[in-house]
């Protein structure tokens, strides 16, 4: 049994060592994604160009402007004399956020019945819009005063990421996205490729058992996955100063569990498709919802219930929770038992389905 698993693993390693494309993807995909998500896609909203119309000109209004400036979210340009001027500057694209402090600012602040400050937002930039709405939404300023507006609004995400840098949030979860992508792609082709090239007909006339074949094929990728995890952590620490607050052992255990789940998903795809192209397409179909719904990009809490249920089926969802817990909050694996269990359930179910689908037959 071990003999046969070793035979398959050694064969895969020989083949891998000659497959430059796959080899390139093992290193290339993590690096590319790191740079892409770490630098290019910047969810940190910092230094948005903005301007103020301060019709109140009180010490309170000046304090508010000072606070806005200090937050770093808005980079205030020269103040505007009037609201129409503010709109014009927004139309030309000079500013993306406009802050209007009405003449009766002080009275509004005390009376709690109307908003004390009006925000004008350039809705064509999705991130600006999101951040500005966040600025405005929590809590209604007229009710709790300007101090509250500032602290509450920006406190939302500061607990484990005091500087609110995207990279700190993104990089750990990126481990999941990268593994999800590479592991599923690699193994989704695993059986199909042999079928396409005709090796399958020979393979199934050998005494290798189905599960031995599966395990033998997956083993090299488990190591590759752990290697990629290491790569992302090192680059993350080096380029983006992402700290690892939890234990490395827990982190690797969680990663190994997720790798196994992703590999099994790939295998399942491999057993239900007939060509490598189909396998690749199906792998891609599972990837997109994983990335969008896992909480990697969009906060999980904002999703409709049905979508949240769908997200529960995706292994990436649970891994993103686990890895953020371990890396950012310093949580231990046993604090994340529920997520680990859900990953485990996925793994077992996918494996069972794969075994059910896989036959040592040609028909």
């Amino acid at each position, binding site marked *: 049994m071990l*003999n*046969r698993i*070793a*035979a*398959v693993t*050694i*064969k895969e390693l*020989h*083949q891998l060592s*000659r*497959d430059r494309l796959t080899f390139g993807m093992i290193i290339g995909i993590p690096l590319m994604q790191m740079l892409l998500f770490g630098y290019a896609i910047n969810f940190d909203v910092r230094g948005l160009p903005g301007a103020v119309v301060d019709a109140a000109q009180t010490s309170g209004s000046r304090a508010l402007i000072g606070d806005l400036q200090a937050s770093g979210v808005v980079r205030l340009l020269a103040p505007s004399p009037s609201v129409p001027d503010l709109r014009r500057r927004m139309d030309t694209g000079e500013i993306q956020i406009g802050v209007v402090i009405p003449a009766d600012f002080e009275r509004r602040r005390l009376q709690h019945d109307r908003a004390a400050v009006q925000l004008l937002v350039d809705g064509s930039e999705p991130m600006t819009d999101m951040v500005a709405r966040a600025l405005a939404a929590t809590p209604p300023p007229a009710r709790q005063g300007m101090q509250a507006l500032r602290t509450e609004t920006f406190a939302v995400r500061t607990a484990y990421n005091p500087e609110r840098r995207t990279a700190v949030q993104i990089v750990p979860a990126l481990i999941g996205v990268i593994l999800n992508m590479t592991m599923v792609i690699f193994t989704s082709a695993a059986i199909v490729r042999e079928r396409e*090239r*005709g*090796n*399958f*007909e*020979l393979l*199934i*006339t*050998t*005494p*290798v*058992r189905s599960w031995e074949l599966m395990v033998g094929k997956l083993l090299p990728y488990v190591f590759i996955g752990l290697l990629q995890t290491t790569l992302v952590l090192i680059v993350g620490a080096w380029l983006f100063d992402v700290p690892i607050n939890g234990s490395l052992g827990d982190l690797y255990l969680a990663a190994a569990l997720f790798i196994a789940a992703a590999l099994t998903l790939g295998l399942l795809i491999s057993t239900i498709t007939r060509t490598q192209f189909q396998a690749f397409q199906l792998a891609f179909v599972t990837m997109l919802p994983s990335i969008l719904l896992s909480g990697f990009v969009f906060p999980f809490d904002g999703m409709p219930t049905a979508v949240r249920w769908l997200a529960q089926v995706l292994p990436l969802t649970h891994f993103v929770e686990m890895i953020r817990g371990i890396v950012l909050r310093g949580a231990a694996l046993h604090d994340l038992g529920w997520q680990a269990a859900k990953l485990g359930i996925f793994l077992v179910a996918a494996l069972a389905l794969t075994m059910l689908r896989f036959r*040592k*037959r*040609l*028909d």
Partner: protein
Amino acid sequence: MSTAPAIVAQGLTRRFGSVVAVDHVDLTIPRTQIYGFLGPNGSGKSTAIRMLCGLLVPTSGQVDVLDHQMPRDAERMRAKLGYMTQKFSLWDDLTVIENLQFMARIFGFGSRERTARIAELTREYDLGSIATQRAVTLSGGQKQRLALAAATLHRPELLLLDEPTSAVDPQSRRDFWESLFRLVTQGTTILVSTHFMDEAERCHGLAILDRGHLVAEGAPQQLIRDIPAIVVEIEAADTVGARRALDGDPAVLSIAQLGTRLHALVDPATPTADARLRGLLEQAGVAAQVEIVRASLEDVFVAATGFRTAATSPPPQ
């Protein structure tokens, strides 16, 4: 070793949708012989072999291989069967040695046995000079030797070879057949499919397949003796004219060209078949030498497959 037949098939049938690839085939293949499946492309040879090694489930019918029912016992039989696929199915991106090592490991050879057996096969199939070459770079003959080495590595009792020589030069084919006879003397039973007449003639027993039907079975010499036709050989400069002169005669079942000669298969009930044809040729003014000859396997094949033109005639047997 048991003396029961190596393979017994009864009513073996396999459909693919509306295509009946193998249609109620009955077979009994004795041990330690070379048994051939002869048939044109699409006659069901590969499908039959795949059912024999448990890769395809028969639509109906029964197969026993080495006293085990297929495909039920297929997994238990793996170590006793060797299978060489029609298309090269070892790994192109592995070297010759790596391919053999994989097969040896998967068949449970320990490291010392493995080394010894691979050295033996390397010698036997002359793989030494290409040992570290990747399979993709091998010639047709080299690939075939590697495939045979891989199929026989675990010393199977029954070897199934699906058109092993179709992509191979004549010298390699001769060497290949030498290897097969050597294996048979060592006690192996071999089933080989082919569409080459000369190869079919080397087999101890032969089954002729046509569109899924088993249309003739027996030893090649037996089949030649029992051919249900008189074979008349016509040697003429104007083969086209000769052909035209004989076509349409009710006694002439088929005409096939072999170089400058024609072989006419004539209804066995015809008295003095040669004289009849000679007369027809003279009438048409075609100068020709005409004589009755011993049938070739090609003639047997033509006769067995319904004389080509008479597609509706029931298969003899």
